[in-house]
């Protein structure tokens, strides 16, 4: 019974720091599945390995190595470190973490105050698991460090210590102190936080500056920390630079899927959905074919707007819609990168359930289906019938782009099953009239005055001379005395 005692005796920590030591290579691996990849830093001529993936490490590549030396070991796919992308990823993750607690700060990692949210998520373990799963699912390797102060949490995360690990034995090189201070301290035989804490404070302040003393005080929670809290933006913006220029929309699907998954993760965290989003493809310069990479001019951007019928945060659904549009989309030139933008993040509302009355019918299948159809065919291609209180045949119905609940009772007289979009002039000699006339008049009020006699007829001869016996709905225009075909029975 001793081990659990320790857990209950120690109050749950208030602070969580999430370190992302593999961020640079995570960003590469999120887009590439195979091969030995390295991220390099430093001047082009003397590039050194900043980070390497598992395949590269297995081949003997080490961070800090010169690129030329690493390339001698194995075939490498080289990426230049992209601090902008790293910042963007951190902000994305901050927005994701914001779904767990409203107190999030971003520096080289994320600092979260979790004291208040622990109860909400069902205790410390549940919160830890939920956050951990979220980061892994998004392809980020995170190290969690807990503490009673932000500095303590950060130190445990950077040093990869668990939440019970004492801070004293942690080496000073895991601290955010100036490396020169750490080196000087090491020269005097002070290597760990514990050793530093044992030195007289006044002496430390005099020799190494007040900063070092303040750091120790913050670590022990004696000095409050001023954190700049993250505020999630109301619009979403992400930019992805493609590993190589790409004109094939099929090949763009994978990176786009990744970007939409990120968006979906944030929407889940925010408990919101999107109704429309925009993809912009930054293209190569038109003249040279392989232009400079940089901020593209307006004319070098192709835009793809994707709209949904209702707000959604389902990554698969967002991607399926995009996919349908991409299938029939051609890029004029190769794309260098992709922007994903959501101008408005509306509140998420669960799907309405009043579409059908039959409980055996899957109500969730219809909306995505209609979305898929309108995404590919265009919203004008989907039409819903509506009845209009009108005598004139062609005005008694409308096919609208949005469904309307019909309330009108239709006329009793037999009407055609199919209505031609416009009446077609005919020679009445080709038709045999089968019924008496039904006079339909009206329209003086809207300048579409009609006086017509409608008949059911049998077509006996078509223009090609063939005899056909289709049921036709024809009328004679009583003003002009001419005959028209309006529909089929």
């Amino acid at each position: 019974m001793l081990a659990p005692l320790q857990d209950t005796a120690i109050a749950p920590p208030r602070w969580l720091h999430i370190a992302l030591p593999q961020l640079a290579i995570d960003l590469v691996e999120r887009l590439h599945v195979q091969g030995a990849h390295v991220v390099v830093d430093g001047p082009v001529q003397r590039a050194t390995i900043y980070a390497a993936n598992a395949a590269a490490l297995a081949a003997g590549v080490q961070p800090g190595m010169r690129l030329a030396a690493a390339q001698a070991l194995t075939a490498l796919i080289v990426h230049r470190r992209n601090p902008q992308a790293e910042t963007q990823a951190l902000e994305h993750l901050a927005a994701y973490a914001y779904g767990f607690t409203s107190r999030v700060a971003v520096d080289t990692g994320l600092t979260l105050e979790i004291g208040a949210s622990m109860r909400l998520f069902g205790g410390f373990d549940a919160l830890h698991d939920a956050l951990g799963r979220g980061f892994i699912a998004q392809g980020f390797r995170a190290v969690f460090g807990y503490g009673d102060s932000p500095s303590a949490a950060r130190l445990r995360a950077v040093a990869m210590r668990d939440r019970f690990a004492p801070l004293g034995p942690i080496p000073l090189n895991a601290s955010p102190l100036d490396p020169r201070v750490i080196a000087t301290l090491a020269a005097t035989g002070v290597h760990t936080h514990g050793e530093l804490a044992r030195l007289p404070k006044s002496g430390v302040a005099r020799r190494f500056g007040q900063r070092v003393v303040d750091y120790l005080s913050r670590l022990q929670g004696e000095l409050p920390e001023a954190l700049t809290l993250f505020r999630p933006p109301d619009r979403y913006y992400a930019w992805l630079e493609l590993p190589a220029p790409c004109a094939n929309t099929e090949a763009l699907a994978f990176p786009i899927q990744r970007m939409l998954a990120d968006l979906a993760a944030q929407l889940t965290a925010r408990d919101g959905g999107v109704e429309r989003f925009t993809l912009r493809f930054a293209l190569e310069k038109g003249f040279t074919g392989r232009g400079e990479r940089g901020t593209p001019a307006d004319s070098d951007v192709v835009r793809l707007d994707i709209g949904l019928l209702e707000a959604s945060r389902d990554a698969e659904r967002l991607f399926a819609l995009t996919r349908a549009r991409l299938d029939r989309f051609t890029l004029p030139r190769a794309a260098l990168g992709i922007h994903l933008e959501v101008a408005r993040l509306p509140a998420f509302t669960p799907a309405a359930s009043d579409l059908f009355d039959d409980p055996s019918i899957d109500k969730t299948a219809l909306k995505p289906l209609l979305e898929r159809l309108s995404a590919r065919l265009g919203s004008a291609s989907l039409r819903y019938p509506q009845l209009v209180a009108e005598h004139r045949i062609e005005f008694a119905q409308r096919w609208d782009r949005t469904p309307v609940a019909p309330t009108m009772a239709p006329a009793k007289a037999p009407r055609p099953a199919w209505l031609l979009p416009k009446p077609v002039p005919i020679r009445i000699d080709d038709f045999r009239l089968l019924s008496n006339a039904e006079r339909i008049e009206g329209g003086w009020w809207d300048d579409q005055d009609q006086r017509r006699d409608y008949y059911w007829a049998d077509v006996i001869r078509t223009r090609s001379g063939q005899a056909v016996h289709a049921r036709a709905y024809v009328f004679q225009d009583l003003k002009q005395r001419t005959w028209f075909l309006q529909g089929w029975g």
Partner: protein
Amino acid sequence: MHALIDNNPAIWRARDALQRRVPAQPTRHAALDAVLPGGGWPVGMLSEILAPQLGFGEFALLAPMLAERSRQGHRVVFVHPPCPPYAPTLAQHGIALDQVLLIDVAQERDALWASEQILASRTPAAVLVWVDAANERALRRLALAAEGGQSLAIAFRPLSAASTISPAALRVCLDAPDAPLRIIKARGLNCTLAQPLLVP
């Protein structure tokens, strides 16, 4: 005699077994339901209506089924018809207009794609799609998409296609508005239809 056979569980009738095997939606035309395997339009399969053009009684043939389906909350989808249906007539025949959808596309390719999407989704529907005479592949795709689902797929083709091979489970020819229906194929019917089955 009939009562004797019907009430004796020991007597097994091949016709019953065949009818049970085909899930179907009654056409509500008594003479037609009596002869069709399963007693109606085959569900989860492709049916074909062959007629020279609109106005051959196709609407009267389909309307009772469409009305019944729509009232059960199934979608009634018209894909790529030569001209749009007339909503007041749909309502007159008891078709719930809030279930009706018209898909108006310029190309048959899009019409097929849309039909496939609807048939393959979990939304039960009656899909009425107009297909070019020569497009065998289109029919195979539709038959495949319909297979095993809860939906009805009905393809409209010109009468000239009657002589070609089709993957449809049921093929009905409309020769004239008042002429009897001609069934030229009905999967599950335990006879080869050397002579087309005429239904008044």
